[in-house]
């Protein structure tokens, strides 16, 4: 069913989840959280992480019933052929759309911070070609690269640590300034940078070992990323005073811009270069999820044949999203579809599968 060459270990699954989850959101997250949750933004991230954990358990419970099928395999089994295939295409659309959003935001940030004069299309082509080169490989190769790319996260944490030189912990007090209601509400905001854990829907059958271990790996990955995000948000919150924060859209980068070592003046550029690694990986992860579906429907399971035109679709998606109005629309669409496809539908499907006693063999 699943070729031997595509099998990955549970450790690799963990890093896959980590790499899928770290995306563009991290740069703007502290700014957004500070708006609503004030100094308790980091608590919101923790709450969001907990919520994600719950969702992961739901997704896992669903996948566990069909241990040898990806989501594209078991959807038709639960809901019947027609509806199932329709849902599959919706999921493919959702994955593609997520990838497109990540790509667009990536191009925005790089265009604003580093390459001011470089045309957007050139940047997109560069990023997409690199992603294509990886995405058409089998899962094992992708996972290998993700494992090693995770080192960049450690370096990113180390770089952010420099910020503590001018930290002022009084900025976050009083912690409940915004009130618990707002804190929980902004957890909703913090949920979106954490998306990517849906990868488990597609990856589940590719992972070796028992289902319990798979859940553990996915949860551990999510935990690490939640902690990483919490750390970064916390760092930003103690460095920028509440008065300055609303003016700073990418607090992490601004923070690093202010520091310098003896030989490197602009640490933010180094941070961004590492961040490019992580974002490309997140994109590859989305592309892989989408192309597995497309490959199943159109290319007899060979996902790599679907990669070239997927890349073209993403290019168009990212080219459209240049105006703020379009970007906002993308954001809204992502939020709605995320709740529908990752939280709502799986829950319904799980209940449905449970009561209908549907099980894969």
């Amino acid at each position, binding site marked *: 069913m699943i070729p031997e060459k595509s099998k990955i270990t549970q450790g*690799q699954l963990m890093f896959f989840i980590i790499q899928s989850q770290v995306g563009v959101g991290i740069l703007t997250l502290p700014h957004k959280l500070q708006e609503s949750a004030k100094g308790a933004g980091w608590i919101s991230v923790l709450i969001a992480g907990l919520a994600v954990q719950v969702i992961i358990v739901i997704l896992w419970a669903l996948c566990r019933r069909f241990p040898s099928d990806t989501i594209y395999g078991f959807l038709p089994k639960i809901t019947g052929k027609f509806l199932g295939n329709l849902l599959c295409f919706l999921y493919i659309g959702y994955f593609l759309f997520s990838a497109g959003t990540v790509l667009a935001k990536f191009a925005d940030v790089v265009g604003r911070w580093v390459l001011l004069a*470089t045309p957007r299309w050139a940047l997109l082509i*560069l990023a997409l070609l690199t992603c294509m080169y990886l995405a058409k490989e089998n899962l094992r190769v992708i996972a*290998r690269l993700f*494992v090693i790319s995770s080192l960049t996260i450690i370096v990113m944490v180390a770089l952010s640590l420099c910020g503590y030189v001018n930290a002022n912990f009084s900025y976050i007090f009083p912690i409940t300034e915004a009130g618990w209601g707002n804190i929980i509400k902004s957890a909703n905001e913090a949920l979106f940078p954490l998306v990517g854990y849906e990868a488990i829907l597609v990856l589940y059958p590719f992972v070796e070992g028992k289902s319990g271990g798979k859940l553990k790996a996915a949860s551990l990955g999510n935990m690490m990323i939640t902690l990483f995000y919490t750390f970064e948000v916390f760092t930003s919150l103690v460095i920028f005073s509440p008065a300055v924060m609303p003016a700073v859209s990418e607090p992490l980068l601004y923070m690093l811009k202010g520091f310098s070592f003896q030989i490197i003046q602009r640490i933010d550029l180094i941070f961004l270069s590492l961040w490019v690694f992580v974002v490309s990986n997140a994109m590859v992860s989305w592309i892989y999820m989408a192309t597995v579906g497309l490959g199943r429907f159109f290319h007899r399971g060979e996902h790599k044949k679907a990669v070239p035109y997927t890349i073209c679709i993403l290019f168009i998606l990212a080219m459209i999203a240049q105006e703020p109005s379009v970007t906002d629309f993308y954001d809204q669409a992502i939020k709605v579809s995320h709740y529908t496809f990752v939280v709502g539908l799986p829950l319904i499907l799980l209940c449905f599968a449970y009561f209908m006693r549907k099980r894969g063999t």
Partner: protein
Amino acid sequence: MKDVLSKFFSNNRAEEKPQMKISVYSSLDQNMEYIKNQLFHASDLKWRSISFNQSKGLIVFLESLADLQKIQQEIIKPLEGKSHGNVDKVVTSVDITKSSVLSEVPYALIQGNCVLLFEGSTEVFIVDVAAVNIRNISEPVNEGVIRGAHDGFIEHLMTNLYLVRKRVENPNLVVRYYQTGKETKTKLALLYMQDLANPDLIKEVDQRIASISLDMTLAPGFIAEMMEDNPSSIFPQILLTERPDRTAAHLMEGRVVILADGDPSALILPVTFFAFYQSPDDYHSRWIAGSFVRLIRLVSFIIASLIPALYIAVIGFHPEILPENLIFSVKSSIDKVPFPPIVEALIMQITLEVLREAGVRLPSRVGQTIGIVGGLVIGESVVRAGLISYPMVIVVALTAISSFVAPSNEISTATRILGFPLMILAALFGLIGITFGMLFILIHLCKLECLGTPYFAPVMPLRMKDMKDTFVRFPIWSLNQRPHDPHPQKYVQERNSRGWEQDDSGKE
């Protein structure tokens, strides 16, 4: 003779069909005529008449291949002395075979055998009298070490096998002969440890050697190119070495070695990227020093491939990344130069490559000229003339020196070529371009496999245990297991060699 051959070259596939089997005539002249015709009356075909058992005979040989001394000592002398008896008992050579097929004789001759023919007999004797002309065993010039063994492979297969067998005195060391090159009949030897090397690996290698089908196998490079999984990658996937100690060490890790007659390099496979950065020197020096040197080598890989690109990105896109006082001194030199940094870099890199290539080709007597022309004229004058900036010269010099640090010539060339696409990316996209370039290279390294072994192991896939002998070299007594990448049959290679340490503590 044929069955002897086929026994030797057990896996020799699709042997040339002998056109016709002609059996030995009973007339001596007829036989001789046939041999002469088959070798087209070659001038180095010689013969000498003898008489034995009262019949006339001939000794036929190629004087270019046969050892005349041997013929005299082992054949003529005993035959003259005895004058009757059994030929194969009288002749004192080690290797003597009887044959009744005349069409085999020319092939035997060109392998350095001599042939004994007798009037009235329908059998010939083929005696091995091949001359051995070899150079001395000397240290390989391009793989020198400070400490350790100073011998190296030479162009003679038997000597090379001797060097390896001498180091690994173990019946498990298997040697298999192959023959490649339809016309040149180059002899290959495949070496592996029966109890270590993975059987699947050997099967695969065997299959790949057997499928080589070309008229001439000139260099091991031919064989390497035929066997690599990704021949279009710029990274070498088969390690070439002229050092027997390196070869033996790799054999003992469960890898496979291919030696070719007529060439001093051994092919080692499967290897990982990091094998190209290991040198026997690492193991001869103390482990801290060895680790330090190896780290320097790996850093030099990064310097050689990345520094020109980084320079271009920083100067062209983000000069603000440099500290202020450095910006001024760099800028003052750059402002005089009319070209963008990428053009500067390309000019200098290509000049460097030209100098390097010229240095290899030039006879050593004029070699000094290169030093003067390259070092003084180009290095100093281009800056004076305002064509290239000082920092660029420094960057290129640093790149060149770092790339030559690699202990393997193949990887050093690969490194310098790798610099070019990175430079172009840096010129187009700055630091972001370099990041994508590096990502691309990493993906490529991640994709590469060498006979089922991931090329970038143990980093991708990550294996902490094998890290002990990758970036650094841990003390030998802590390297308890063989590297996992060639999937050897036995992992343990060291057991508590410093066991005496624990005994000490309890003593009073």
